[in-house]
């Protein structure tokens, strides 16, 4: 008997997205640590100048987008495991989507002020 247990490869797509975004964040983390180490001591002018550079802003934005996507997959997994009532789970999923979108909006605001 042929059974269709999932639709449109949602599980695989999310699994893969979580891993690709993880790899992007690993690269950014190492990069950010090296940049901060190279600019010691961090004073306000150094700090401000660092985040005024285009490549730093874009890299940080890429990190933030990866974080939001990665966290969404993780949050959804946790909610599916522990929150059994459908209505409550859906409501929490909506809240977390809004939260992660807010984080992204805040990041944009901080980076391009």
């Amino acid at each position, binding site marked *: 008997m042929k059974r269709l247990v999932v639709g449109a490869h949602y599980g695989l797509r999310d699994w893969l997205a979580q*891993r690709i975004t*993880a*790899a992007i964040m*690993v690269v950014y*983390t190492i990069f950010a640590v090296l940049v901060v180490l190279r600019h010691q001591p961090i004073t*306000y002018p150094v*700090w*401000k100048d660092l*985040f005024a550079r285009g490549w730093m802003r874009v890299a940080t934005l890429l990190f933030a987008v990866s*974080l939001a996507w990665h*966290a969404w997959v*993780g*949050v959804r997994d*946790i909610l599916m495991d*522990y929150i059994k009532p459908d209505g409550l789970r859906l409501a929490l999923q909506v809240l*977390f989507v809004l*939260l*992660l979108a807010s*984080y992204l909006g*805040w*990041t944009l*605001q*901080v980076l391009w*002020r």
Partner: protein
Amino acid sequence: MASASAKKIRPKYLSLSAILFQIRLPVPGWVSITHRISGALLVIPFTAWALYLLDTSLRDERGFEAIRGYFELPLVKLGMLVFIWAYCHHFLAGIRYLLLDVDIGIDLPSARITGWIVIVAGLLLTAVLGGALLW
């Protein structure tokens, strides 16, 4: 007895409290549940906190100095230590999972060893980074 074992419900669902308090979890299991807990902590509250710190420190000279002073508070230091631990542990455990995905360290003895490495290295990194940043 055979019928009794046949009646066991499989797969057995373990609640979070059962994982933490009722069963004796092997090391890879501890890495798994702490990966989940640290991930949840990073979503709430630590991403919001990091954004607050970045926002305030980049706003102006006064904001930057305010964050400097903020880091002197013992409760902030403690919070930052938990933040650093959550990030480092999640980072290292995540790399372990990426390696497991490509069948590196997949056998049980290796998985136990790398599990211990992740736990210990996470704590060591927290001590080193926390010491360098906060003291």
